[in-house]
């Protein structure tokens, strides 16, 4: 209580300090989330010695992945990447689709699922959204190979049912695909060819079939890692300085707040010391004040950023950004340490003032 009163002594100064902390929190929460997303998405999903082909068609077509591979004479297999509806998802447990650990949004979608065919999934069974199923021309009982980021072998699932769901595109969607404009995207894996050659072949094939594809991409494991690294570097370059500037100014303001306090409060501290307060009494009181400022600024702005990220991810199937508890805690602890450490110097100086000389000045 007293710490709060002390902090409120200069409302304007406090406001500026709180604002810079808020900006610092928001920027660092965002940057950490984006980096985390980039890291998760960037986990290699291509086995060594294999090339990944992906393209999005500009108009709907009946071309299936299996057909594509066969007609191109590619010795590959096709797998899907995407959100899954397994048994454990129904129970609300975590699932590694796209490597996201959070299923909070999944839980939100589940009640809206309507089973069109088949039944709810059991172990190693899978619900497939209707639209994805059409693209993949899958049937109930058929096996689908799903590749998880970070693993090299696809996991086989039996399609237990087909659902009508807002997540219709997720099985085939890739993170970089434009929202809404995506028709479908095929991920095929082929062996022993150079990526340039394969890319040319795919383009020629699509052209011969009268299909228009946007961004045909053939990547090997190394190329994929490189492209993700570039992406996350881009995020860092844009957001890093913002977070840095905000946090540096927050630190300076905290320092300033307590350095100014030091001059203003020298007499008060001296009288407390004269009454028998020890250095640690004084230091603790001042740190409590720093804590009060921190608590005033940080948890609310964490909450706001959380809500923002939740919105940013959108209610749509194709979610990129998930607010994570771990990151929120990191920001909380990191900025807490920053505030306490920058308060510490002035606070210690405050605590070691000699009562006598301070009390003599009129």
């Amino acid at each position, binding site marked *: 209580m007293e710490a709060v009163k002390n902090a409120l002594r200069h409302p304007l100064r406090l406001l500026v300090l709180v604002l810079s902390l808020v900006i610092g929190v928001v920027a660092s929460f965002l940057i950490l989330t984006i980096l985390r997303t980039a890291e998760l998405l960037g986990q290699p999903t291509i086995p060594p010695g294999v090339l990944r082909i992906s393209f999005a068609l500009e108009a709907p077509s009946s071309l299936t992945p299996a057909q594509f591979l066969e007609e191109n004479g590619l010795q590959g297999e096709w797998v899907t990447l995407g959100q899954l509806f397994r048994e454990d998802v129904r129970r609300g447990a975590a699932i590694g689709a796209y490597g996201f650990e959070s299923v909070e949004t999944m839980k939100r979608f589940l009640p809206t699922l309507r089973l069109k065919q088949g039944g709810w999934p059991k172990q190693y069974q899978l619900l497939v959204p209707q639209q994805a199923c059409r693209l993949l021309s899958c049937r109930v009982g058929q096996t689908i190979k799903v590749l998880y980021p970070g693993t090299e072998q696809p996991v086989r699932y039996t399609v237990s049912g087909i659902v009508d769901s807002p997540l219709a595109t997720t099985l085939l969607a890739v993170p970089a695909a434009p929202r809404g404009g995506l028709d479908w995207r095929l991920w095929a894996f082929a062996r022993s060819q150079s990526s340039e050659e394969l890319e040319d072949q795919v383009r020629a094939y699509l052209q011969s079939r009268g299909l228009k594809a946007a961004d045909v991409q053939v990547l090997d494991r190394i190329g994929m890692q490189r492209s993700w690294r570039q992406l996350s570097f881009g995020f860092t370059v844009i957001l890093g300085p913002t977070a840095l500037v905000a946090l540096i100014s927050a630190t300076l303001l905290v320092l300033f707040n307590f350095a100014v306090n030091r001059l203003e409060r020298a007499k008060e501290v001296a009288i407390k010391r004269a*009454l*028998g*307060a020890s250095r640690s009494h004084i230091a603790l009181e001042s740190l409590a004040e720093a804590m009060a400022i921190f608590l005033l600024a940080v948890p609310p702005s964490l909450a706001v950023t959380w809500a923002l990220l939740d919105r940013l991810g959108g209610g749509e199937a194709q979610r990129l950004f998930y607010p994570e508890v771990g990151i929120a805690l990191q920001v909380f602890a990191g900025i807490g340490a920053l505030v306490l450490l920058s308060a510490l110097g002035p606070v210690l100086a405050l605590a070691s003032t000699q009562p006598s000389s301070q009390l003599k000045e009129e």
Partner: protein
Amino acid sequence: MMLEVIDLSRRYRSGSQWVSVLQNVQLRLREGELLVVAGRSGSGKTTLLHLLAGIDRPDEGKLHLGELVLSRNSPEVSLLRWRRAVGFMHQTPVLIPTLTAWENALLPFRYGGQNPDLAWVKLLFKRLGISGLENRRPRQLSGGQATRVALVRALARRNTLFLADEPTGRLDEAGATAVWGLLLELNRQEGISGVVVTHDPLILKQAHRVLTVQEGRLVEAVVSGRGDL
């Protein structure tokens, strides 16, 4: 013996020179003794009182208060114990602006490790005529009222030694009379010993001894005090 001061010296650096403010000061204060210290402005009264209060360290000499000893090299803990063992009222009242008068008066208990004696503090407010001002902030108090709150704070812990630096300097005659009345009563009835810096003639005759600081030494003044000790 309540308080014993042996060969106490204190000097300050002023520019490139050392100015000796107190030199080989000797003082023996008996239990229950009320001592007045006078002296012209700048003679070193406040300096002496700060040393007696343990908020300054002597350059030479020693101070004894019961079991406690203070000297130039005393550790911080000894200083803290000493400060908690005396009630000290500073020349200009410094109250914490964010605390109420009541909270200011209770401040010594926060750092002293004693349980606050609320009834006693209440009584002190009453005796000094500031009852009803307990919930005011310092900026809502007059100079005289703030002085009296500071006096309550100095007396709150009921220490056996009380030190005051011109406690009535900012009070009118009625206020001064109330303060001296209270201090004399505490001295007579509770046996509290006191060292009070003042020039107020109201109290000079009531003190057991009157000393003056002259050229860095404590000198027995000509004024004769009361003889009940």
